[in-house]
């Protein structure tokens, strides 16, 4: 263990520079964030991830945000265990009908002010699962969505660009 720890002290950081916030995400957000909320939150957001029927692909890439290369916590973004601690819901999947009620309840359990980010192509409009008897199709058909991050699944860099755009808006930098 000692060797592993020492090496990480001497070898320098793997963490990569932050990507620029996504322009289209900034545009989508421009109309949606109010000043009062910005003042209250500062530059920190607690994120609650909700899988609303995804294939688990998006979850894998969301997980990757916490590894040494992306190190999402350096931006003041962190994942929390309960919607009651959260400012942001990160929702994936085509919202299966079996998950719709759980998603609504999670949304209602999240204190205001709150933002919903729909992650992945399924979360936009159901993606390839659209039209199934078992899917609602699109997160915005169940709860209001502030930002969409595309991709199947979106790469960690795409996720980071979207979340950084959200953070900039919430903290009132742009």
């Amino acid at each position, binding site marked *: 263990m000692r060797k592993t*720890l020492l090496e990480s002290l001497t070898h320098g950081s*793997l963490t990569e520079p932050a990507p620029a916030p996504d322009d289209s995400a900034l545009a989508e957000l421009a109309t949606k964030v109010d000043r009062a909320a910005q003042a209250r939150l500062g530059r920190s957001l607690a994120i609650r991830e909700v*899988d*609303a*029927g995804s294939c688990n692909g998006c979850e894998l890439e969301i997980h990757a945000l916490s590894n040494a290369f992306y190190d999402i916590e350096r931006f003041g973004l962190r994942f929390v265990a309960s919607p009651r601690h959260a400012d942001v819901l990160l929702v994936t999947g085509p919202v299966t009908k*079996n998950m719709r009620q759980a998603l609504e309840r999670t949304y209602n359990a999240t204190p205001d002010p709150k933002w919903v980010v729909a992650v992945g192509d399924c979360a936009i409009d159901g993606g390839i699962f659209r*039209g*199934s008897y*078992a*899917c609602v199709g699109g997160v915005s058909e169940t709860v209001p969505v502030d930002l969409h991050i595309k991709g199947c699944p979106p790469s960690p860099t795409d996720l980071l660009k979207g979340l950084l755009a959200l953070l900039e808006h919430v903290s009132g930098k742009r």
Partner: protein
Amino acid sequence: MGILDSIPHVNAVLSHRPWPRAVVTEAGWQAAIDRLVEGGLTLLGFWGEPTAVHMAMLDGGSAEIAVVTYECAAGTFPSVASRHPPALRLERTIHDLFGLVPTAADDLRPWLDHYAWGKSYPLSGRNASRDARPYQFLPAEGEGLHQVAVGPVHAGIIEPGHFRFTANGEHVVRLEQWLGYTHKGIESLMQGASLEAAAKLANRTSGDSAVAYAFAFARAAEAALDIEVPRRATYLRALMAELERLANHFGDIGAICNDASFALMHAQTGILRERTLRAAGAAFGHRLMMDVVVPGGVARDIAPDGVTALRTLLAEIKKVFPRLIELYDNTASLQDRTVTTGIVKADYARQFGAGGHVGRASGRDFDARRTLAYAPYDQLSFEVPVLEAGDVNARVWIRIREVEQSVELIGQILDLMGPGEIRNTPPAGRGGCEGLALTEAFRGDVLVWLRLDGALRVERCHLRDASWFQWPLLETAIEGNIIADFPLCNKSFNCSYSGADL
């Protein structure tokens, strides 16, 4: 036709490849169940159609597979689960989707149907409706027992499902799972889909096993159409399958240790996982390698600098991973959590035909890559690690050994993979054919069965994740353990929700 020799059947279905499928009467159906109950055969799959049910069975000794079909003239079939418990969730699913009724069934509670679809029996083609009732968990009675309900939304970044614990103080007396939350209706979306669209759905049945599903789907389609795949394509498929296994095993080893509060391992394996995904992205244009394996071969060749990226990855793993193994092995506080925790009994692993690390950590010596030796694994040399202890520790060690084997396999593939074609176009107009295939995903064997029509459209497709036969064993493994060890046990299984909810 070894398996079918001992099962009375009416006729063999000629267009089913590569293994036989036969229609049986009630006597034949019961004879098949007898063989499962005796343990001579292992249940590989159990699925429905609007007027029939099918069972796929494996003879582990001879590596033979056969499918038996019972035609449900009266909308009923003799229950398998009442005699062979591993069939239970699949049987409840058949009832949920097709409305067929297992006669003499002990448990007909819904499984995937949470009464939220707006219709009952969605694949039956009928307009029958079912009375909605609150889900009844199995009773557990005794002084001082209390229940803990967890999910469907969990604390971590994981898939949704419900766990109902009955506990006596800290100790779990009974765990009952209730899944189905991620049911997307994949089998209904498959119906009428083109091969291309269906392959995309197969890729997204369980995103962590995209390659394994695409591989199984492609091989089932190729078996049905009786077409060969270019040699280079088979090597590229295995290359991706082993990269997928590496990435998942790295993730799992770290996450199991993290659930025992050993964050250092999680951080280190997280680096290896990321490097693996980046190499996969550089080589195949997609970090999870979705939509590269297609019926007939692969959609694109490895990128020009892909081989270099993968060789660099292998060198890095060979340098770092041995030290991490040592770290795992020499950290007493970690071993204290994993050794003798969450034991899966060998008898259960055999009875349920548990695949992957769950089965192999409990003495079940089965790996589809070796037992069924599909291309190109028949040309490659590798070992299948098997342990007996059946605890969390054994499931970690199976993964560690499999990482080593995958690293060796990738090296062999890069050495042996010669130039050549990468795709044969599926022939049009070979109507009414059926295929079955198994591939070894990181968590166990994936089965795909499909029937194609003359226009190369999917008439019916069933995908069976290894998790179907692993989830019930998690219920047994946690018994007598403390609730606080559940995340550790659960992660050591890492069953799929989406893959089993379909």
